[in-house]
């Protein structure tokens, strides 16, 4: 029976793409493995390879067609001995009902390389939930805002600092020629050259140490980990060499270095590639730890991190890279490290989170408002030093608190916040602090289990209601 070739997806979240080119003509013989067509999305081009043998019976979607939905039949392959008359009998390979609809924002898959297109051709990713409350004190009134993705905000921050200070350089796996495994370093090689944008071998322990040594000698490295999961290979250098040297040398010698990259869970990459290191690093004296949520904070805080004379762990989030947000158009937008931000005011319950945890917290706050509970929402932005004052001030007002994190509960950041609230605002508390977190298991691969393992807005709503005795 003739077989239909379906429009393939480049990533689990791709819904449509363009059929750029047919490389085989109708009537041509096809062997399994032959490239028959090229498809493209705004992020990448990919070749469609035949998995069946025969002749290309009919092209159903002509080249140049835009926005072809995934799984649309694009051609029919005739098996040996079949001819055009058989075309009508074509069957598609059994279609897949999506196992579960865990749908993180459409995102460049990890390990997905950069397309050659410039930043301007960036994916129109869903905007992060709009933050309304509390104007940012850092931004003068009337400042023009530019909408950009978090990916672009990070790139701009690095480029600006590299223009400003010749000692700043970046190194890591695939940061230069490939333009970054997640496209964050796009264009940096072209602007700054191979001396300052350096592809390393896959040797995290080694290049982290090389970066730290270079920093001890006075340079200002930005070390990109393809993801923070791989920084575990470099843990000793980060903790023992970077964090402790200033102290051990009696203040003579430290290192100004930024370790950055995506942290936390991506989609369906399982236990070894989905872990939140917020708690790990924020336990270490000598390190500063930053984990922003909004595009503006990503930019302003990365610039601050690069300038900081200490080792800074800058935790990004893959799921957020494509999110857009307003970023102030200022020559030098630097946000002080160590200051939380109240992103929504409310008098009934304080919700504290950071990074992608804010996604759940914001959704929950909206839900709660519908039920008459006004949540005050705090984005910590920096995890070390932790802005205890802002949290405590809010709890003194609301008397209730819920923390939200993707990481595990035991010895987590939420546990630390709860302890500080107890120490500084015990008499103001009307209920025990509750923690919403990732479940106490390694991240499973299966779609349904992964969804269960992550925190959810519903869990935040439930916890907030519980502390409000509702």
């Amino acid at each position: 029976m003739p077989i239909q070739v379906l429009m393939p997806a480049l990533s689990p979240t791709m819904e449509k793409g363009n059929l750029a080119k047919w490389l085989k003509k109708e009537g041509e013989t096809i062997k399994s493995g032959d490239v028959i067509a090229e498809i493209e999305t705004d992020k990448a081009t990919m070749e469609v390879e035949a998995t069946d043998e025969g002749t290309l019976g009919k092209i159903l979607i002509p080249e140049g067609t835009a926005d072809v939905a995934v799984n649309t039949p694009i051609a029919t392959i005739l098996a040996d001995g079949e001819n055009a008359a058989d075309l009508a009998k074509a069957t598609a390979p059994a279609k897949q009902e999506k196992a579960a609809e865990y749908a993180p924002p459409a995102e460049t898959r990890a390990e997905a390389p950069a397309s050659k297109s410039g930043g301007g051709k960036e994916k129109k990713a869903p905007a992060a939930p709009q933050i309304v409350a509390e104007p940012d004190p850092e931004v003068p009134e009337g400042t023009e805002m530019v909408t950009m993705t978090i990916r672009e905000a990070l790139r701009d921050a690095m480029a600006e600092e590299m223009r400003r200070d010749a000692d700043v350089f970046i190194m890591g796996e695939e940061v230069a020629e490939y333009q970054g495994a997640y496209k964050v370093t796009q264009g940096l090689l072209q602007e700054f050259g191979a001396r300052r944008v350096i592809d390393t071998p896959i040797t995290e322990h080694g290049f982290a140490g090389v970066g730290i040594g270079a920093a001890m000698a006075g340079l200002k490295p930005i070390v990109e980990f393809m993801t923070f999961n791989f920084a575990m290979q470099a843990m000793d250098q980060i903790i023992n060499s970077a964090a402790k040297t200033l102290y051990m040398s009696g203040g003579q010698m430290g290192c100004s270095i930024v370790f950055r990259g995506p942290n936390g869970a991506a989609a369906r990459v399982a236990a070894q590639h989905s872990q939140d290191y917020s708690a790990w690093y924020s336990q270490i004296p000598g390190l500063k730890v930053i984990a922003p949520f909004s595009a503006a904070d990503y930019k302003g805080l990365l610039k601050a991190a690069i300038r900081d004379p200490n080792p800074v762990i800058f935790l990004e989030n893959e799921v957020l890279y494509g999110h857009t947000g307003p970023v102030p158009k200022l020559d030098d937008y630097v946000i002080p490290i160590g200051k939380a931000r109240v992103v929504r005011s409310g008098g009934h319950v304080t919700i504290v989170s950071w990074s992608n945890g804010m996604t759940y917290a914001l959704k929950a706050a909206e839900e709660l408002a519908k039920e008459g509970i006004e949540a005050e929402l705090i984005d910590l932005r920096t995890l070390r030093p932790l802005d205890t004052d802002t949290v405590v001030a809010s709890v003194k007002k609301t008397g209730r608190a819920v923390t939200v994190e993707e990481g595990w509960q035991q010895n987590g950041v939420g546990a630390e916040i709860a302890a500080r609230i107890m120490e500084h605002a015990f008499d103001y508390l009307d209920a025990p602090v509750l923690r919403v977190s990732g479940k106490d298991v390694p991240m499973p691969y299966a779609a349904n289990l992964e969804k269960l393992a992550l925190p959810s807005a519903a869990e935040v709503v439930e916890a907030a209601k519980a502390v409000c005795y509702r």
Partner: protein
Amino acid sequence: MAVAKKSDVKEKGQDRGNGAPPEFTKEQELVALRAMLLIRRFEEKAGQLYGMGAIGGFCHLYIGQEAVVVGMQMALKMGDQVITGYRDHGHMLGTEMDPKGVLAELTGRHGGYSKGKGGSMHMFSKEKNFFGGHGIVGAQVPLGTGLAFANSYRGNDFVSLTYFGDGAANQGQVYESFNMAELWKLPVIYVIENNRYAMGTSVSRSSAQTDFSKRGISFNIPGEQVDGMDIRAVKAAGDKAIAWCRAGKGPYILEMQTYRYRGHSMSDPAKYRTREEVDKVRHDQDPIEQVRNRLLAAKMDEQELKAIDAEVRQIVNAAADFAQHDAEPDPSELYTDVYR
């Protein structure tokens, strides 16, 4: 690709001289063909299912590298262990793990080898002595060395086949392992699958010493470069290395010169190499075509070859059917297997 064939193993007196590997018997050719075809068709199906959204996350295909695993499998014996990285589907099929269980793991179903909890990169089979399936580049190298340590400790003559890539070969733990393995004369074969690229980085852009067979020199570990596209060369080199290990002489390094046809993982537009480069390898060196052509030259009936292909396709289709219709793991599985 400069290929040195240094293997001097003689099998049934068929050494053809010039260092060329011994010919396979017809039976061996057929075993090789079928096993490699199974991997190829399986991987094509996996790619297709990924394109349809049935497989999530990362999915690293082994297409092009089939001769490495199959050749080594033909050289080892029951009880030898196998361990590798995340490009692991071929190794699992090679160790005769059930294609249904492997594919169902890729789709995250209950019937997968890890009950859907591990996915493409993390799969294991105690029964088949397959120790994973590891997502962290290089991590399997000390582990594989530890498998060999266990063999040595128990005094058996089993060998650990520890596979890793050209990129992984730059991780520090590889050299820590080399040192211990030689120091303690551990029976481990380090099979370096040099497919010329680590993601988008070619070997010459990442490696000071691009002859990976020499990476053990400072530890006194012997090594050789092998034409990893010619399954006979792989098998011959495997025989030699395994004999070395079983005789208690310590570790051995085999650099398999091979090539991956597909992208690093699924959405790799491959701007770091040309289509001509890929096509040339595929056309001139394809490991499966080499066997097929030899069989045809030896007057094997083309229909018989087609029958093998049909049988393999049927196995793969049955696996795909299972993998798509098997149930997802029960929600209660979220909390199982954390401890025992």
